[in-house]
């Protein structure tokens, strides 16, 4: 149970990182993740299905890399679409995201070969690879946990480095005050496009991993992920306050694990209070409201 919560928390934490980058760093309320997350899932699952037989059973690190890349690319493309719609048509970010998300529902169905659901029955390369690599050292559940912790650590290292580079600093400034970026002689359109691609590539990566973890990709994977991602980011912000980007990135994962734990609790013991799985979305919404309200109260008192 606990390792399940941790693994899920880490995987969906990658998705929440995407939400954090668009909503918090770029100040760009991006709904695209509802399309880029399932796009990554579909891309990853399809890659596993098509390339899997060529690599044989038991998995292969190279095949895993292909699956993760497929997720990154599929998600990044969705982000690129949103950025182009936003910049060229000069529409509101929310509308740009809704347009992409709507279009990607059909695109994701196409990736999945016209079916709404693609189970990884023939083989699940990502899980197989992790298990075979850590075989004998750890139990299956804990090998998954170790692998996801390692993956998250690597990702954290890359992003923490990125947000300390010139490009990363400029991206932070862009969401804060676009004028300061323009004054530095930087093309704000190109920089924002890069940021939105990055955010959605992360969502796509999370989608590809989630599909492997769940054992299937589904076109409806994306439903509600913006809200759960936001709730995750806000939970993290509620628990840890910091102006340092490294801490801000790390607390997304803490928020994600907390969120998954809360959801698990609501599913497991919610019946005691008359809560059914149907109420989980309402709980997510209330969680966001509560986080915002609490952060406002905290700001006033400090």
């Amino acid at each position, binding site marked *: 149970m606990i390792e399940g919560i941790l693994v899920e928390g880490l995987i969906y934490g990658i998705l929440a990182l995407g939400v954090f980058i668009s909503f918090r760093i770029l100040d760009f309320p991006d709904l695209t993740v509802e399309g880029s997350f399932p796009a990554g899932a579909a891309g990853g699952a399809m890659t596993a299905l098509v390339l899997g037989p060529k690599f044989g059973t038991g998995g292969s690190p190279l095949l895993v890399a292909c699956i993760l890349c497929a997720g990154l690319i599929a998600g990044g493309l969705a982000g690129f679409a949103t950025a182009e719609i936003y910049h060229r048509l000069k529409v509101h970010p929310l509308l740009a995201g809704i347009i992409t998300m709507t279009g990607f529902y059909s695109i994701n169905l196409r990736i999945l070969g016209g079916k709404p659901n693609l189970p990884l029955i023939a083989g699940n390369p990502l899980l197989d690879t992790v298990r075979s690599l850590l075989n004998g050292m750890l139990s299956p559940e804990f090998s998954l946990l170790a692998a996801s912790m390692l993956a998250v650590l690597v990702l954290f290292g890359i992003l923490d*480095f*990125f947000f*300390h*580079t*010139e*490009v*990363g*600093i*400029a991206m*932070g*400034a862009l969401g*804060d*005050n676009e*004028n*300061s*970026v*323009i*004054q*530095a*002689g*930087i*093309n*704000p359109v190109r920089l924002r496009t890069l940021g939105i691609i990055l955010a959605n590539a992360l969502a796509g990566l999370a989608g590809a991993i989630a599909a492997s973890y769940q054992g299937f990709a589904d076109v409806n994977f994306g439903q509600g992920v913006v809200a759960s991602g936001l709730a995750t980011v806000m939970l993290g912000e509620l628990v840890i306050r910091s*102006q340092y980007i490294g801490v801000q990135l790390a607390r997304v994962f803490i928020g994600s694990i907390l969120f998954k734990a809360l959801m698990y609790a609501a599913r497991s013991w919610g019946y005691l209070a008359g809560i059914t799985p149907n109420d989980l979305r309402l709980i997510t919404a209330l969680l966001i409201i509560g986080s915002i309200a609490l952060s406002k109260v905290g700001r006033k008192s400090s």
Partner: protein
Amino acid sequence: MIEIESARVSFSLGAGEEHVVLKNLSLSVKEGQTVSIIGSNGAGKSTLLNAIAGTVPLRAGIICIDGVDCTRQAEWERARYVGRVRQNPLAGTAGAMTILDNLALASRKGPRRLKIATPPVIARRMAEEVAQLGMGLESRLHENVSRLSGGQRQALTLLMAVISKPAVLLLDEHTAALDPANAEKVSALTKRFIQEFGLTALIVTHDMSRALSEADRIVMMHDGEIIADLSGEEKTSMTVAGLVDLFRKARGRDYAEDRDLLR
């Protein structure tokens, strides 16, 4: 060096009507010259700076900076050689980022690299740069800019605008939102940076006496046109009262509240 030739800026009011803000304005500013731009509200002073910076497009005319035609360049492209400070102290800096990050952002113009932005070498250089402001900010490099006072923040914005030694420095009433003491400080810094770096500067101001004392040349605008252009002997012998008179004469009409209009 700036050369502006018959610049025209207008906004469409619909139904074929347009509101003209700059009327075929021509202006040539020599390298190293400091020009004060004065005039009543709505005279087109800020629009002139916006046109030079590329914030508003020209309907007609040409703008050259250091001999390069930049009429069609976007604002961010021109920012590589145009530094700018606006009236609002919040406008030029990223408040949720540290002083060091803001300075590092401004110290390099143009595309960014995938290199750590503030290694110790840069941090030391920026501490030296910010020490010039004489506000003790060098010991607060890792604090967020939002924690600075208006005067400190505007001084930082000024430093960020001049740190790359731009071909042109545009100052749009950059001390108007500050209290008198801070306005004095920022003005003194402005003067020092312009002299030290030999900058070409255009300063929009409502402060007549400051315009007279700080600039080599005074350009008076009204209704989108330049109605007086004083330099050399003419400027040296000019007084605040003389400027108001000049304004009245040039308009050929009697404004009862000329002093207020110019303010």
